[in-house]
């Protein structure tokens, strides 16, 4: 990986050996998450096992046998052990194996697993994304519950596991294993494993490449499938309360490795969590590859020139955006149109409603105005007449006064004047 890089020796302590601690500190702050899928028939003990694995009673209501199809129910819990905070999601099948026709039973499960991959892919492809705070719901491990018949695997088991083995880590377990005797159990386990191999079903193998764990993992691999017993109840043994199942002939202790493999399963799940997540990432990558290839993306396009995935996505996105814009415009236009229509209608109605009122008052006003004018005119006429009358009176009075002043005789001039004035 480090091509062309010299290895240098340090002359003193630098301090970057604290890097794993820095990383761990951040991871602890951020918290961890783990997602388990339990597939099994109704009543096979899925809830009891999960509760026993994590020594906590996860409340869940028992389901009926009469569901028409297989559904999945997911519940998330927060567990804390010392400074590790774990967000545990447990997904259980509901109604698995209850239908008369089980041909499609596995499909909802496959769809669920794909849906989680799809959700992650969607987030990854977003332009503004927050992968750091994204709650990863991809299934990290699938516990497949085999019925404790003691014979062999059922067809539905083979069908389901085959449809899932390229998408998820499968760990087969034998549920309610306290109903099988020890010798029968050995035979049963051998039979199951050989059937899995002959059907080409890949199950999860605990990693054996790291020397520190390879020995214990190889030994544990030989115990597959795990014969598990779970219990929600506790029984008093000595002075302690332990998870157990009490029978008339004895007590099956869940945490006793001689009685069942539940503790082995717990240990393996916990100590290989990181590896399970790593392999899930690899499954996700192949899902992503298929999905993107289906969308028509290629890493090398025609003429062998590298084609970018983002080009295709961008082209599609632009198409989509343009489409959205077009639709938006359309809707806007329609809206504007309707608004205008409505406005016109309203205006008309308004006009009609208010017109008579206006005209009436207008009429009244007009009438009033006309009356005023008429009166004004009359007033003027009267005033004119009064003025004329006053004038006439003044003239008459002045003539009267002139006549009385002119009687004392003065000379033939004044006579003449008189005559003239009399004539005038």
């Amino acid at each position: 990986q480090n091509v062309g890089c010299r290895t240098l020796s340090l002359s003193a302590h630098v301090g970057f050996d604290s890097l794993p601690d820095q990383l761990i500190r951040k991871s602890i702050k951020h918290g961890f998450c783990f997602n388990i899928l339990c597939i099994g028939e109704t009543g096979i003990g899925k809830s009891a096992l999960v509760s026993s694995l994590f020594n906590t009673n996860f409340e869940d209501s028992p389901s009926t046998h009469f569901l028409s199809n297989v559904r999945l129910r997911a519940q998330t819990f927060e567990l804390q052990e010392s400074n590790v905070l774990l967000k545990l999601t447990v997904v259980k099948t509901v109604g698995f194996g209850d239908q008369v026709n089980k041909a499609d039973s596995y499909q909802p499960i496959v769809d669920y697993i794909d849906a989680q991959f799809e959700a992650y892919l969607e987030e990854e492809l977003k332009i503004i994304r927050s992968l750091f705070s994204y709650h990863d719901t991809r299934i990290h491990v699938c516990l497949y519950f085999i019925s404790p018949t003691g014979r062999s695997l059922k067809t539905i088991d083979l069908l389901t596991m085959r449809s899932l083995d390229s998408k998820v880590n499968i760990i087969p377990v034998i549920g309610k294993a306290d109903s099988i005797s020890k010798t029968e159990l050995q035979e049963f386990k051998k039979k199951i494993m050989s059937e899995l191999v002959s059907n080409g079903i890949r199950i999860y193998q605990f990693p054996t490449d790291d020397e520190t764990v390879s020995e214990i993992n190889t030994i544990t691999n030989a115990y597959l499938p795990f014969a598990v017993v779970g219990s929600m109840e506790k029984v008093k043994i000595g002075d302690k309360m332990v998870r157990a199942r009490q029978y008339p002939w004895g007590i099956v202790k869940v945490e006793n490795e001689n009685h069942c493999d539940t503790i082995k399963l717990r240990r393996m799940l916990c100590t290989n969590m990181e590896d399970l997540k790593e392999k899930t990432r690899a499954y996700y990558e192949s899902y992503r590859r298929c999905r993107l290839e289906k969308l028509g993306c290629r890493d090398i396009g025609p003429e062998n020139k590298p084609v970018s995935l983002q080009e295709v996505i961008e082209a599609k996105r632009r198409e989509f955006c343009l489409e959205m814009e077009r639709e938006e415009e359309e809707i806007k236009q329609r809206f504007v149109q309707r608004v205008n229509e409505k406005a016109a209608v309203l205006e008309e109605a308004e006009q009609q409603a208010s017109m008579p009122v206006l005209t009436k008052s207008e009429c009244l006003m007009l009438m009033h105005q006309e009356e005023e004018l008429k009166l004004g005119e009359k007033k003027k006429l009267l005033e004119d007449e009064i003025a004329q009358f006053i004038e006439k009176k003044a003239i008459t009075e002045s003539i009267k006064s002139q006549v009385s002043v002119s009687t004392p005789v003065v000379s033939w001039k004044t006579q003449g004047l008189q005559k003239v004035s009399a004539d005038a």
Partner: protein
Amino acid sequence: PHAGPVESKNEAAMSELVPEARQKPVVPMKPMGINASLLGYIGIDTIIEQMRKKTMKTGFDFNIMVVGQSGLGKSTLVNTLFKSQVSRKSSGWNREEKIPKTVEIKAIGHVIEEGGVKMKLTVIDTPGFGDQINNENCWEPIEKYINEQYEKFLKEEVNIARKKRIPDTRVHCCLYFISPTGHSLRPLDLEFMKHLSKVVNIIPVIAKADTMTLEEKTEFKQRVRKELEVNGIEFYPQKEFDEDLEDKTENDKIRQESMPFAVVGSDKEYQVNGKRVLGRKTPWGIIEVENLNHCEFALLRDFVIRTHLQDLKEVTHNIHYETYRAKRLNDNGGLPPMTVETEENHESNL
């Protein structure tokens, strides 16, 4: 001085001069909400060991860039930080060699190992920065290089069949060397930091701090901090990326008191009080690089390497890279992607 875990002889010698950075407690300060309580040991906490094993196996990448005018001691400082000749010193420009006409970008990678932890360290030098008569836009080649690394990563990430571990050449940390004028920041400093603080984590460093007295140093640092604030330059650790109260109190102290670190670098050892220390010998005394009374080199080293190394990478990945990616995918729409060799659409990105 508080001595932490002793790891080697050198460590023991220096622990009396320099207070060891306390190993950060692995337990988070506040307990988190519990829905279902566990009784009895399950083994969930083994995930910590699994993580540690995994990271030790895969190793780490770290890319550090140094920017500053020539002669400010960049190479010496980087060599002192990583206690090895990771950066070849340019012993001044030879008469025959000319000062580069533009800023050059030189990236040299080394693999170093300590305590089982393998690190691929790449030091990116920028000779020619600030050395021309006209230094306008001399940050552009640097910004271009940084964006090219984001582009490289993006291309890998966007491939259909992609590598399990994408090689990380992105610049995680950019040490910007400030000349110890004692007055204020130069316009070039402000220009560079204004442009680049938005694309990369910048850690400003006062170079050759042995030319200032303690009072001058304190005043200069205050002035520099003020100027950076006034100009809206957010250096690392950026306020907005403090994750929680614990981070904030720790980083506030660093932002408001310690930074910018006034450093002195040296790769020569001298005998002081019977111990061998890294230092600079002058007629008036030996300046001990790792002595906190003499300079703040140890603070810088602890900050960058011992406490915030992982955070530098995370801020680069979660924030700077995401910003670049979002801009790229938005702006370029169905245009052909930018290739690293030919930069047709580069202008549009900037």
